[in-house]
């Protein structure tokens, strides 16, 4: 046992110790104050805390499964019990949240959960006054209303105080997981009222939802990593600057978001920015590309190989347009501006202003001119975007530099 504990990373051991301490303190305090009832409350608090730390990887970011438990509790427990249990659960999650997401992001999540729980508790009290019947369908109505308040507050707070890594909040992405949570809370409530042991079964459909979303998130990540690996090839071959794909992707995403393009469009542009030099891999000798003047042909080769995959056909069209003569869509303009800007700036933020002027000067069509204006706005409002882009490409350039050093 001791060996098993020693083998755990130090951070995990500290976390386990803190959680154990919180658990022991809760049990002692509540047990002392309220006897067996207190111990039950402490155990319930631990259960809610654990469930809040199990998350679904939804398109809007991670969503805790424990929301369903909190919502059901608002209907099943009296108001004081609800606030004691949820309050205890939130306190216990603090060290884990801070360890997992960092200080700021962890506390931001805690604040969101606290406010949503408080609003949900209030809504449950109000619903009990409005709908007094003990019939299961009425219980379902009450829990739905309290749940809607909880999830509504959560969504509003997600929009107002987004976490740094979270994608922009869109209702269309949020509702499937949230409605599943509401169903799970409803099922849990009526199952518990029927027979308490049945409540355990009510979470199974939610686990199924978690399984499906987590697989999707993992697959998406794997695909993104494959694209990243492929985008490195022309850079490794020395035909395009190291980190150019990654940096261009940062600029393309920033431009697309500023232009209000859809999530699909943002994703497509990021992929196109990473793969816009992929045509080089079809050449017999990638070294030839250094002397290749016909950039349109290379873009066409890239477009052709991406179209061959079928799924990246739309990305292929964008890639073809990157060195094309005219720009026929906003997306194509974004890609041209993003890749062109990075070619000029590379890893030197001081060149950003000059690059912007040159880009502005070069634009001959309305889409390009509009995208260049948006780039100017981004650089005015968020000049750190250049640093972020350089940082995203840095692992590649650093690795290459380390490799050069090791080879002497």
């Amino acid at each position, binding site marked *: 046992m001791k060996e098993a504990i020693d083998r755990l990373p130090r951070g995990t051991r500290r976390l386990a110790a803190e959680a154990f301490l919180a658990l022991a303190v809760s049990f002692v305090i509540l047990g002392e104050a309220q006897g067996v009832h207190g111990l039950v409350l402490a155990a319930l608090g631990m259960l809610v805390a654990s469930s809040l730390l199990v998350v679904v990887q939804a398109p809007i970011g991670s969503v805790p499964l424990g929301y369903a438990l909190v919502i059901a509790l608002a209907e099943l427990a009296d108001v004081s019990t609800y606030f004691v249990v949820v309050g205890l659960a939130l306190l216990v999650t603090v060290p884990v949240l801070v360890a997992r997401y960092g200080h700021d992001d962890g506390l931001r999540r805690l604040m969101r959960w606290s406010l949503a729980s408080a609003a949900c508790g209030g809504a449950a009290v109000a619903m009990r006054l409005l709908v007094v019947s003990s019939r299961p369908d009425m219980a379902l109505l009450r829990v739905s209303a309290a749940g809607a308040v909880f999830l509504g507050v959560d969504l509003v707070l997600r929009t107002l105080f987004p976490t740094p890594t979270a994608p922009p909040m869109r209702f269309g992405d949020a509702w499937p997981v949230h409605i599943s949570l509401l169903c799970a809370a409803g099922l849990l409530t009526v*199952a518990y009222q029927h027979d308490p042991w049945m409540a355990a079964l009510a979470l199974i459909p939610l686990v199924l939802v978690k399984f499906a979303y987590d697989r999707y998130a993992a697959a998406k990540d794997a695909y993104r*990593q494959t694209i990243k690996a492929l985008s490195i090839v022309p850079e490794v071959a020395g035909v395009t600057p190291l980190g150019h794909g990654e940096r261009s992707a940062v600029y393309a995403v920033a431009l697309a978001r500023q232009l209000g393009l859809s999530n699909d469009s943002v994703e497509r542009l990021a992929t196109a920015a990473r793969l816009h030099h992929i045509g080089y891999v079809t050449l017999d000798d990638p070294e030839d590309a250094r002397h290749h003047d016909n950039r349109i042909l290379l873009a066409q080769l890239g477009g052709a190989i991406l179209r061959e995959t079928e799924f990246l056909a739309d990305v292929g069209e964008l890639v073809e347009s990157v060195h094309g003569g005219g720009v026929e869509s906003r997306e194509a303009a974004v890609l041209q501006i993003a890749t062109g800007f990075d070619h000029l700036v590379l890893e030197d933020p001081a060149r950003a202003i000059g690059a912007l002027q040159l880009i502005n000067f070069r634009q001959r069509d309305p889409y390009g001119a509009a995208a260049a204006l948006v780039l100017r706005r981004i650089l005015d409002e968020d000049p750190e975007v250049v640093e972020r882009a350089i940082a995203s490409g840095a692992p590649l350039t650093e690795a290459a530099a380390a490799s050069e050093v090791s080879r002497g």
Partner: protein
Amino acid sequence: MRPGRWIVVLPGWWYEVACGVAGTALLVALILRGPWPDLVGLAVFTGLLLVAENAQVLVRDDAGMSPAFMIVMASIAGFGAHGAILGSAIVGFSAGFTIDTFKRRRYTAAFFNTGQYLLGSAAAAAAYSALSRIGGTAPAFLGAVLVFGVLNTGLVLVQVVLNYGQPARDVWADMRPEVPNYFAFGLVGALVGVLYTSLGAIALPLLIIPAVIARKAFASFLELREAHDATVRVFIRTIEAKDRYTAGHTERVAKYALYIGEQLRLSGPEREHLRYAALLHDVGKLAVPRRILNKPGRLTEDEYAIVQRHNQVCVDILTRVDFMRSMVGTASDQHAHYAVDEARERDRLVQEAHIVAVADAFDAMTSTRSYRRALAQDVAFAELRDKAGTQFNPECVEALIRAIEKRGEQYGLGFEETEVEFEVTPPVVGVGSAGLGDLVPPRGTGS
């Protein structure tokens, strides 16, 4: 399989028909005996089952976990004491009517499904009814799920064994991971059935909505995986177009890696990760000029330097890409070599690297390359075993050998799948993935 014009018949057709007849006979007996359940409930559950069966909720990698079982259990609990056996038997009977089975002209399979579902449903309903009288709801739930699970699994296992000639143990090994799903889905179904008795049809969306959402998310996952596969395939084709002497190499490495992963009991997602890592382990070749890749014989110092430069930079860069990190192990000698290091061993990616290294080496030895003819399988096995513990992870080596021997497959000299015509005939012995000086294939088996 012998596809006919009107009907597809497999060797176990007689068994399928027998189960179908047994089920139909029981249905007739139950109809004559009665009592009938609530007809509205019967229509609701039957309709739900027909819809669900034709839009399977996938819960595992490639296996389709049918929601029919969940709905049958819901109907058993939902009908209560009145007509549950007949009602659930009718609901179960409808499970055989799937568009897919009819499209594939597997009429005996459809008949089998109606029969086996009906037998399982009726037996589970009888168990539920008996146990709820004796021990209450909890034992009734468990008993019904158990009876249905045993009957359904048993009947399907025999069907697969008869139709496809697989050993029963292997079929069971494929089915065993589904057992927890059976229990979970069955119990949820029973819960919704019980709630149906008190809440009515309003209880059903509480189950259906999350199931539909999960299905949609899973469909998106499958679509994304298909896109990923298609992308990887195109780039493999590009690699093989550049290096035509290694045609089929990446696919074979992925196959051997999965053999090892299966023997080491890696989970579904881990095997998937391993597959992509294996498929892309040669991605660095895209950066190497074709003339060097295809050059017969030794490389000049300059050419070797170009290859090394690309390899080294690839390795260094890929260490920074999370998903591709495991490939580094195979691309770089110093990382791929096996070392007894507990801390690293815990790392899944290192395990992947070891697996891909063994798979890569096995394929390199059993394929003809421009510098050497393919080796016989025994020679390759001996070489892997010889280097196990130093160059290769012994567990991975034994896992690969076990998997290939278990399948009775043969690779290497005389069994090569891909014939490549070389401009210069490769020598029998030459530089390769390992020093093979003392493992030259005996004369007569060679050229």
